[in-house]
């Protein structure tokens, strides 16, 4: 009898990769199944591309579509070659793992390749490797003018604030830093830390109360 298209009766495996769950797909990719890997790339290339574009925008790197595609392909190639999926124990964290890997590899890619920014200029307030923790360019270049007393005082206060924040408990520190330094709202902090929003609000309130008290004491001593 004539074979129906796309069905192979000689094969013992009767499965369609597009209907696989993420768990099944992950396991087959770890086992180096090529069909499963193609489906994995098809399913997650949008997320990886989005992550790469997000990070490049944060770093103020303006790449062409082909260059972005190069980075995405490099990411998938690295995951396949080094079988990095073995480290993913739970498919619940697969998407976040892919986002983290994509961000890190985008940074590495940009460090290896020097790209011109769209403006060809760099502000003194920008970090040459924007998006990573580091000093702004202005801090690196010695000024020919003396710092004003106001700037010195501002730097001093900033140092006192950092010192007082570091005296708080680790949870209060983390919540406060996410709120103040990273501009995240309480709802977002609750999602990141997987705790109730009420707990975040309590931690922030207590941290600010302590800071107010300690900063007041610190400034009085001066």
């Amino acid at each position, binding site marked *: *009898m004539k074979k*129906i298209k796309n*069905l192979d*009766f000689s094969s013992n495996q*009767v*499965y369609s990769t597009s209907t696989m769950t993420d768990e099944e797909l992950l396991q087959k990719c770890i086992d180096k199944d090529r069909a499963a890997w193609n489906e994995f790339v098809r399913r997650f290339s*949008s*997320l990886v*591309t*989005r*992550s790469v574009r*997000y*990070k490049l925008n*944060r770093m103020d790197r303006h790449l062409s579509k082909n260059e972005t595609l190069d980075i995405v392909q490099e990411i998938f190639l690295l995951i396949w070659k080094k079988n990095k999926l073995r*480290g*993913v*124990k*739970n498919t*619940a*964290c*697969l*998407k*976040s*793992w892919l*986002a*983290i*890997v994509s*961000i*890190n590899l985008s940074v590495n890619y940009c460090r290896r390749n020097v790209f011109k920014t769209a403006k060809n200029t760099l502000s003194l307030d920008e970090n040459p490797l924007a*998006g*990573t*923790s580091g000093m702004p360019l202005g801090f690196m270049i010695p000024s020919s003018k003396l710092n004003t007393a106001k700037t010195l005082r501002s730097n001093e206060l900033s140092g006192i604030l950092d010192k007082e924040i*570091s005296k708080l408990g*680790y*949870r209060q*520190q*983390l919540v406060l*830093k*996410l709120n103040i*330094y*990273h501009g*995240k709202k309480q709802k*977002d902090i609750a*999602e*990141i*830390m*997987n705790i109730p929003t009420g707990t975040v609000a309590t931690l922030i309130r207590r941290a600010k109360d302590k800071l107010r008290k300690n900063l007041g004491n610190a400034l009085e001593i001066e």
Partner: protein
Amino acid sequence: MRRICPSEEILSEYISGVLAEEDRTEVEKHLAGCAACRELLVETHDIISRPDIHEIKNRISRWIRKNQWLIGAAAAFTLSFVFSEHFLQFLTACIIMGAKWAVDAKTAKILIMIYEAWKCGDRDKADKILSRIDGTEH
């Protein structure tokens, strides 16, 4: 506080809420003092919390491609009432496209596979196909 930054796997487990309690404490102690890891966490959250517009578009276009004959049959059926002077023609088109959709459907293919397996006397294969459909072992 951990001095070494947690691995990509640990950070992803942390943000997904599947990390063990003692490991969570260690990671949070590290995050309190490490701006780079905090930045990475914030960026990851920004990416995964946003809806993926491309994926939504792809899903819609895949659904349309999968059910194009059904959509065509529904359109022909509607048009048969709008252009009542061509009622029979549109109704015929609706029946043909509906039949095409039914024949192309996954269910029809599976039934043919089962029939073929039973015809060849391979009951095990037929049972395997059935068990995959309803997720139970026969």
